[in-house]
């Protein structure tokens, strides 16, 4: 009887123990391990911790949440949870989390407004409502997330040195496949970068450069063009894209590589790869002396391109 009572008592208290979470130390430990840990230097420079994606952090925070229950870490964990739900486009769930925080922790610093400023949670609730309202009114299209495929790469051998690139096969499969085909056929061998803008970008891949007559370099096209496979990869330093033709299509062979941010290209050319090694060679190519049409006086040759898979 005595033992039965003990067993029943334990069984009844288990849910309570489970609900009360861990102690303070382990609660904060679990939360700290879940969230990104950025570096802040004295000169104001910030290095963001990008080891995990937002969805990975969300999963980690959700895993840590039960351990924080009933501790001082819980409101902070909930705030993180709501914010990462927002980032995952789960606005209603995020709103629920923030409103629940306000009910349960009205006196917490995260929920309490300052004399002239609203609280962080109030701002978060307003953002959720704004986002939900706008999405109810308009169709919001999100571009697919580009991820570099580290199993394939191309090595460009130029007369100024070599550089390497990897490609976004998940969002630009047709463009990457076409690029691979042209490399394997040797189309880019013995061509040159026929237009360069100092410290901004370079253009190459025109088969017309093989005749060494610069007048028709820009007209180097194939019998086909390519669709624009847009993604969230932006035209920043190292971005490789096929030259845009301005009508929602891209050149079948000519490509451009950014040395520095080129936001004006974001709508007209789709990034399908990125220079991963040797960007300084690309920068050097961009610095060649040119005429008024940005044609370099001295050709920088693209001797060959190797495709490695």
């Amino acid at each position, binding site marked *: 009887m005595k033992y039965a009572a003990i067993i029943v008592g334990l069984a009844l208290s288990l849910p309570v123990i489970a609900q009360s979470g861990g102690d*303070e*130390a382990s609660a*904060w*430990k679990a939360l*700290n391990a879940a*969230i*990104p*840990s*950025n570096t*802040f230097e004295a000169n*104001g420079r*910030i290095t*963001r911790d990008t080891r995990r994606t937002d969805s990975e*952090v969300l999963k980690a925070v959700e895993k840590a949440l039960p351990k924080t229950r009933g501790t*001082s*870490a819980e*409101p*902070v964990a909930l*705030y*993180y949870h709501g*914010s*990462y739900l*927002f*980032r995952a486009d789960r606005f209603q769930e995020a709103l629920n989390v923030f409103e629940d925080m306000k009910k349960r922790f009205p*006196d*917490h*610093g*995260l929920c*309490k407004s*300052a*004399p*002239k*400023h609203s609280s*962080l949670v109030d701002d*978060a609730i307003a*953002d959720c409502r*704004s*986002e939900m309202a*706008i999405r109810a009114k*308009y169709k*919001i*299209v*999100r*571009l697919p997330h580009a991820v570099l495929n580290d199993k394939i790469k191309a090595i460009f051998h130029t*007369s100024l*040195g070599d550089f390497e690139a990897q490609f976004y096969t998940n969002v630009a499969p047709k463009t990457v496949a076409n690029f691979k085909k042209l490399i394997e056929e040797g189309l880019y061998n013995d061509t040159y970068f026929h237009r360069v803008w100092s410290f901004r970008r370079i253009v190459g891949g025109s088969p017309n450069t093989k005749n*060494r007559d610069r007048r028709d370099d820009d007209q180097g096209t194939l019998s086909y063009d390519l669709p624009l496979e*847009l993604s*969230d990869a*932006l035209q920043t330093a190292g971005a490789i894209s096929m030259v845009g033709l301005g009508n929602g299509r891209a050149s079948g062979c000519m490509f451009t590589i950014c040395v520095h941010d080129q*936001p*004006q290209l*974001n*709508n007209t050319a789709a990034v399908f790869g990125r220079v991963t090694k040797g960007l300084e060679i690309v920068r050097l190519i961009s610095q060649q002396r040119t*005429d*008024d049409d940005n044609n370099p*006086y*001295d*050709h920088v*040759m693209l001797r060959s391109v190797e495709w490695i898979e």
Partner: protein
Amino acid sequence: MSRSPLFQLLLVLAAAILFVPSLLGQVRKERRERTEPTPIRKPDDPTTVKGTWIVGGTRHEITAGEFYELHQLLQKLEGTAQRTIPEDAVWEFLLSAAEAQSFGLNVTEGELDSLLNRDDPDLYEGVLARWEAEGISKEKGIDYVRKRQAINKLKNLLLNTDRITTQDAFDFFKKEHLLYKIGYLAFRAADHIEEVKQGDISDSAIKKYWSENRAVPQRFRSPSKVWAEFVFLDPNTFQKAKVGTEPRKLTREEALDFFHKNKQMLMAQIPPDKQHLLHFDENTPLEKVVSPFELLRDKIDQMLMLDQVLTTARKEADEKGADLAAIAAKYGLGYKKVEDCDRAFALTELRPFGFNIFTALFNAEVGSLSEGILQQGQIRYFFRLNKKKDSYLPSLDEVKDQVREMFITSKATELARKEAYGLMNAMNVKAAAELAEQEKRLTAEAEAAAADRIRELGLTRPQDKNREKMLARGRMRRELEQAKRDILPKYLDEAMAEKGLKLQETDYFEYQMARAADIQRAQAKTAEEFLQSNFYIRSLKPGQVAPAVIDDNISKCFYIAKLLDVKDPPFESMGPVDAMQARARIAQLAQNAFSRRFRLPELRDRLALVIKN
């Protein structure tokens, strides 16, 4: 004393060496004096309240004594002998830590263990010993570490949880894509052509126009031209050149001679990955020591052999009537032909052969080859001049009709310009008269503001005072400019009513897209296209008139423009790429501004800080 120039120069140099460093030192000292923070002194009465702030709905305060102690602690832990921790930094530490605490960002003992290496007794003892040497107690040291870590947690919290909404993205996007509507008056040269034709366009008027305007005859000058052919060897393509079935063996002396004559060009061809072989020291084994000549030997042999090919080709080309294209093809060399080529064309097309190639061509004898093999950079070549034509300036009689047309257009343009500028100047004069009182008042205010600022900053150097005065005057001028733009529309309406003119209107257009579409002035076919890309438009508020006439010298038209309306673009015009770009930009700006959140001005505002003394 000697008055020789050399002696005087030496005197000046000596003065510079003696006085300039001390002047610079004075400048540096003044700069240091101005930027170094005031040292914090021990308070006479440590119990007085130094400052109060509100965080988490609760009012906090700190006494002067506590503030001083905190400063001393931070000076020992973060300052150096050369760097005094300023008072602002103490407030920033205090308030950021208070804010972190209000957000419940606790630092556990476990975290402190890690930060202080408490699991390693030696390291921990070292930390405590350092503190003790500085006169910092263990409790105060740990409290500092706890607060610093709490501040880091606060920074992490804010950075990790930043949100960018679609509305934020659209607010950013629309700033760059506003829609503008312009009203304009166009004063066209074409409208005055008939008027000019009714006037004096006699031969004597044309002759006077021709002789008094030197640019006019030059418009008709035809430039010198050449017809030529080039045969060249480009090292980038020399793999294709045919060396010959039985290449002659080259001697080392021949190769060395070629190396010495072309050292600069050849040395530039050593590949970057082989450059390191040229550097050696006493530890380098003898067999690994290489000379540039050895590294380049193969290239030299190849170039020499190909040079011989070029020489052989030139010998064949020297025969009268030789077909250079065929000779170049026979030996696998490059070939280029230019016809009707002027200097401008040569500068682009013949650039590989040197900047002065046109002069060399023009001075050559027609029908003959250039002297020997020429070299420009890596390219070796010879040319044949087939024909040349001197520059020609026609007489007035030969081009009289065209000059008459130019004369008429020029007069008509002048009339249109006078009309436009006359109207604008009249408006500006009236506006200036109306604003005269305001200008006097603003000038006086600017001078007073500058004097206040000079006093406040304690500036003593003339250049610093002048800079403040210039800044104040600049602000005044901008305010006056805006006031002028606000009243110009009234005078434009009056002038239009008086002259019976009416504004023409454009449709709504997007300024940014007009720029992005490169509607250059030379390509603008309509007034709308031309005005859409004009920078004045963006600087105006709705209802304002551009303060200057906008000239279109290509179409010979002069505009007075008024911005009628600006409106937001439709939400649907923001595509997914635009939204993505806007978000990236907002995130970057937020990150750049992040540290300002922890600076005193923002902390003071957010936490209602009041500093008593």
